[in-house]
C-alpha cells in the first residue's frame, strides 16, 4: 500500500490531476466538466425562454453581447439564432451534460470502487475517453463562432435540412463523431471492468444495482452509437463531398433545382432511422444510470434491502434489450404503414412494463422502511413521482392514433423533460450529495442542500407541467414565436409561466453552486462511511488513495444488508462478516 502512496506522490501535478489515469480523477474531471456543460446548456434554454415568453422583444442585459448570427442590432433574437440555441441545448444537455455526468462521472468514480477493483481495466483508455470527450465538447462550442452560427437543424439534424444548413452543422458532425468515439472507449472499459475485476466473493447477483445499471448502459452505448457514427460520417460526406446518401432526386431549394450539385436518389428517412436507432437506446442511457443511483440512495436511506432486487436487475436488462426495437415510434408521422407501426407501438407498450416494475420496486422499498430525509434522499424520492409523470405521458405518444394529435407538440417536450430533467437530473443531484463525502472526505451542507431541493422541486414543475396543456392545445415545438398561430396565441399565458419557472429554477441552483465549492474546503469532515452504507466504495478511505483499498476487499454478502435481525448495527458492509 505504501508503495502505491509513494508512487502517487512521485507523479508530477499534471500527471496526477490533469492527464491522470486514475479512475477517480477521471471521474471527477467528467463530473465537473459535465456539470459545467449542464449549466451552459441550461443558460441557452433560459435565453430561449425569453423569446418564447416575450417574442421579438430585446433580450435583457445580454442581448447585445450575443453574436450577429443570433440576434439583430437591437438584441432581439432571430429565427436561426433561436434554432441554434434549441439544437445546441439538446445536444449539450444530452451528449455533453447528462451522459458524461451519469456514465463518465458517476460510473468512473463509483463503479470500480463498488466492484472492489483498484482501477478501471484499461486506465489509459479511460484517460483517452475523457480527453476525446473534452475535445468533442470544445469543437461543439466552436460552432457558435463560425459564420452562420452553431448548428440550427435541431439536435436530431434531420436531412435534407441539415445537409443544406450553414457551416455550424459540419462542426456539429465533427463534434458528434468525437463524442461517440469517447463513449465507445468508455463503454468497453466499463464492461471489461465489471466482468473481470470484481472482488473475490462478489458474484453478479451481489453487485449493487448501480453497477448493473452501468453495465447495461455500457452495452447500449457500445451497440447503439456506431450506427450514428456511421450516419454522421455519411452526412459529412453529403455536406462536404456532395454525395447523396440523404438527398432525394428533384430537390428544389429556394427555386433552384439541386441536380447540378447532388445526383439525388438518396433517402431523407434513412437518416431518421439511423439517428433514432441510436437515440432511443440513448434515452435509456440517460435513465438507467439514474435508476442505478436511485437504488443506492434509496436502499441506504430506507435502512432496508431494495424490494425485488432480482426483478430490478432483470427489468434493467430487458429494458436495455427492448430499447433497440422501439426506435421508429419517433417516426409514426413519416408515412409509416400499419404493419410496421403496429410492431413499433406494441414494442413501445411492452417496454413500459419493465419501467413500471422498476418504479414499483422502488416505491414498495419504502414499505416498512425507516426513511432518513437527508438531501440525497429528498432528490431520490422526488424522482419517483416525476419520473412516473414522464413515463405515463409516454403512453399517448406511443400509441399511433393519439400521436397524430400530440406528435411534435409541447406535450412531447413535457414528456421527455419529465423523464430527463426532474427524473435523471434529480437523480444525478442525489448522487452528487450522496458520494460527495467519498470524493472529498467532507459532507455538503444539509441546510444549503434543502435550500437547493425545495425551490428546484417547485420550479421544475412550474416549467414542465404547463407544457402538457400547451401541447394538448396543439402548440408545436421548435416554434420561434408560438403566438404566430391561433392555438399558440390563446395559451401564451402558460408559456410565460414556464419561462418564469425556468428562471426561478436557474436561481434555485445558486445554493448548489455555493454549497459545492464551499463544502470542498469547509464542509463538515466525515469518516469513511458517513451514511452507514453497505457497498464496497464505503470500505475505502475518503478520499480513496491511488489503488483504492488499503486491504483487498473480500465480499461476504449481498449489496443491501440493512437492518438484518439480531446484528450489532443496522447495516452489514459487504466486506465484513458481521457479528451478532
Amino acid at each position, binding site marked *: 500500500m505504501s508503495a502505491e502512496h509513494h508512487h502517487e506522490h512521485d507523479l508530477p501535478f499534471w500527471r496526477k490531476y490533469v492527464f491522470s489515469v486514475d479512475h477517480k480523477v477521471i471521474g471527477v474531471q467528467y463530473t465537473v466538466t459535465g456539470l459545467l456543460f449542464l449549466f451552459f446548456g441550461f443558460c441557452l434554454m433560459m435565453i430561449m425562454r425569453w423569446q418564447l415568453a416575450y417574442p421579438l422583444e430585446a433580450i435583457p442585459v445580454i442581448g447585445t453581447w450575443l453574436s450577429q448570427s443570433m440576434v439583430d442590432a437591437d438584441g432581439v433574437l432571430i*429565427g436561426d439564432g433561436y*434554432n441554434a440555441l434549441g439544437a445546441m441545448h439538446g445536444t449539450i444537455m444530452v451528449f455533453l451534460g447528462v451522459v458524461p455526468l451519469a456514465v463518465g462521472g458517476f460510473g468512473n468514480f463509483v463503479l470500480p470502487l463498488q466492484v472492489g477493483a483498484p482501477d478501471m481495466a484499461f486506465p489509459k483508455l479511460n484517460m483517452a475517453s475523457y480527453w476525446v470527450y473534452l475535445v468533442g465538447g470544445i469543437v461543439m462550442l466552436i460552432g457558435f463562432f463560425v459564420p452562420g452560427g452553431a448548428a440550427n437543424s435541431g439536435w436530431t439534424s*434531420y436531412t*435534407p*435540412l441539415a445537409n443544406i444548413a450553414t457551416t455550424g452543422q459540419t462542426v456539429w458532425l465533427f463534434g458528434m463523431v468525437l463524442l461517440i468515439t469517447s463513449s465507445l472507449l468508455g463503454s468497453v472499459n466499463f464492461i471489461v471492468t465489471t466482468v473481470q475485476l470484481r472482488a473475490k466473493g462478489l458474484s453478479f447477483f451481489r453487485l449493487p444495482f448501480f453497477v448493473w445499471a452501468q453495465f447495461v448502459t455500457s452495452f447500449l452505448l457500445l451497440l447503439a452509437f456506431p450506427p450514428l457514427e456511421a450516419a454522421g460520417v455519411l452526412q459529412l460526406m453529403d455536406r462536404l463531398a456532395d454525395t447523396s446518401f440523404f438527398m*432525394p*432526386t*428533384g*430537390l*428544389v431549394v*429556394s*427555386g433552384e*433545382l439541386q441536380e447540378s450539385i447532388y445526383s*439525388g436518389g438518396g433517402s*431523407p428517412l434513412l437518416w431518421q432511422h439511423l439517428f433514432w436507432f441510436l437515440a432511443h437506446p440513448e434515452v435509456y442511457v440517460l435513465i438507467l444510470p439514474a435508476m442505478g443511483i436511485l437504488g443506492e440512495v434509496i436502499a441506504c436511506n430506507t*435502512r*432496508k*434491502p431494495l*424490494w425485488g432486487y432480482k426483478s430490478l436487475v432483470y427489468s434493467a436488462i430487458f429494458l436495455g434489450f427492448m430499447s433497440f426495437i422501439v426506435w421508429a415510434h419517433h417516426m409514426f408521422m413519416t*408515412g409509416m404503414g*400499419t404493419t410496421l407501426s403496429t410492431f413499433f*407501438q*406494441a414494442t413501445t*407498450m411492452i417496454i413500459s*412494463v419493465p419501467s413500471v416494475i422498476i*418504479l414499483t420496486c422502488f*416505491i*414498495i422499498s*419504502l414499505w*416498512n*422502511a*425507516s*426513511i*432518513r430525509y437527508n438531501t440525497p434522499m429528498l432528490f431520490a424520492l422526488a424522482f419517483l413521482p416525476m419520473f412516473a409523470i414522464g413515463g405515463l*405521458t409516454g*403512453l*399517448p405518444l406511443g400509441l399511433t*392514433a*393519439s400521436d*397524430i*394529435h400530440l*406528435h*411534435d407538440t409541447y406535450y412531447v417536450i413535457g414528456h421527455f423533460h419529465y423523464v430527463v430533467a426532474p427524473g435523471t437530473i434529480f437523480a444525478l443531484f442525489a448522487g452528487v450529495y450522496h458520494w460527495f463525502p467519498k470524493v472529498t472526505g467532507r459532507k455538503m451542507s444539509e441546510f444549503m442542500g434543502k435550500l437547493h431541493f425545495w425551490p428546484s422541486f417547485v420550479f421544475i414543475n412550474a416549467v414542465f407541467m404547463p407544457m402538457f*396543456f400547451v401541447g*394538448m*392545445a*396543439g402548440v*408545436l415545438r*421548435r*416554434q420561434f*414565436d408560438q403566438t*404566430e398561430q*391561433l*392555438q399558440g*396565441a*390563446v*395559451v*401564451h*399565458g402558460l408559456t410565460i409561466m414556464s419561462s418564469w419557472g425556468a428562471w426561478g429554477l436557474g436561481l434555485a441552483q445558486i445554493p448548489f453552486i455555493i454549497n459545492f465549492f464551499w463544502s470542498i474546503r469547509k464542509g463538515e469532515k466525515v469518516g469513511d462511511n458517513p451514511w452507514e452504507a453497505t457497498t464496497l466504495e464505503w470500505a475505502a478511505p475518503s478520499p480513496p488513495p491511488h489503488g483504492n483499498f488499503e486491504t483487498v476487499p473480500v465480499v461476504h454478502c449481498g449489496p443491501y444488508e440493512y437492518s*438484518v435481525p439480531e446484528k450489532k448495527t443496522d447495516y452489514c458492509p459487504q466486506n465484513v462478516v458481521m457479528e451478532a
Partner: protein
Amino acid sequence: MLAESTYGAWFPPMLSEHGGEIDHLISVVHWFMLALFVGWGIFFVYCLVRFRQRGGHKAVYNPVKGKISKYVEIAVGVFEAFLLVGLSMPVWDWYKNEPPDAGADRCEIRVVGEQFQWNFHYPGPDGKFGRTDAALIDTATNPLGIDWENEDAKDDVFSQEMHLPVGKDIYVRITSKDVIHSFAIPTMRVKQDSIPGMEIPVWFKVKKDATTAKLKESMTQTYPIDKIKWRRIRHHVAVEDYQDRSGQVVLAKGAPLGNNLEQGEKLINTLRESGHTELVLQPANPLEVICAQLCGNNHYTMKAQLITHEPADFDAWVQEMIEDRTAGSEMFEDF
C-alpha cells in the same frame, strides 16, 4: 356542438369526422394515467409519513409479501393491450388503410411544402392534375412549376390558401420541394410529414356544419378590456366599429388590433381611455394549416389559411379561381 369550438388549454376545436376517436383515446389514456398516478401517489405519501425515521421505529429486513404489485403490473399490461388493440389500431387502420373511393365525391388536393409556405394544387372539375415540371418553377408566380399549357392543367387551381368542402371526403397527397415539413391541421387531428422524394396521402372529412363562416360566428367572444393581452388576440378582428370619445372610428369592423405589439397595446389603451370596457372579437380566420417539422429560419411562420365551405360554395370558389387565372393570362397575352 360548434359552440364548444374555442381554442384553449386542452383540446383545440375538433372539426373532423375521425377526430372524435382520437380525442376519446387521449381522454381514456389520461384517466388511466391519472388513476395510476393517484393510486401510486397515495401509497407513496402514506409510506413517506408512516415509515419516516424516528425514535423507536426500526426498518424491517424481510421483504413484504403480497401479490398486489404483481396484479397491478398485470392489470397495467392488459389495459395497455386494450388501448393498443381496442382504441389505437382501429383509428390508425382507417387513417392508413381505408382511403375514400376515388370519384366525383372525393376532393383531391396535392400539397407541396417548401420553405416557408404551403402550396395547394387542385385538379379542377376534370379531376386530373396537370403536368408539372421543375424547369417551369418560378418562386413568385408558379412555385409548383405547373405547365398551364398542358390539357389537364387548363382547369387546375393553384392556391396558397387551403379551401375545403365540408362533409366530403378529402384526399390529400403530400410532398415537399426542399426539406422535410409536416402538414398539420390541429383542428382536424391530421398530421403527416411532407417528405421530398415521397408522396404520401392522408384523408379525412370535415364535419358538415364546420364552415368557416359558422366557426367565426361560434368563436365570437366578449373580452373585458382590462384582461386583453395583444399577443393572445393578435389573430382576432373586431365584429363592430369602436370609436374614441370624439366619435372617430379607431377600430373598424373586421380590422385587427394592430399589426405588432406596440401598435396593439397603443390601440387597446386608446380604447380603454375612450370608455370601452369590453370588446367583441372573433378570429380573422379560425382554421390554419401549419408546419410541424422544423424546416429552417422562418419555420414558425409557415402556415396557410384553411377555409371551409358548403360544397356548392367550394365549387364556386374553384370556378372563380379558374376564371381569375384565365382572365389574368389573357390580359398577359394581350399585353
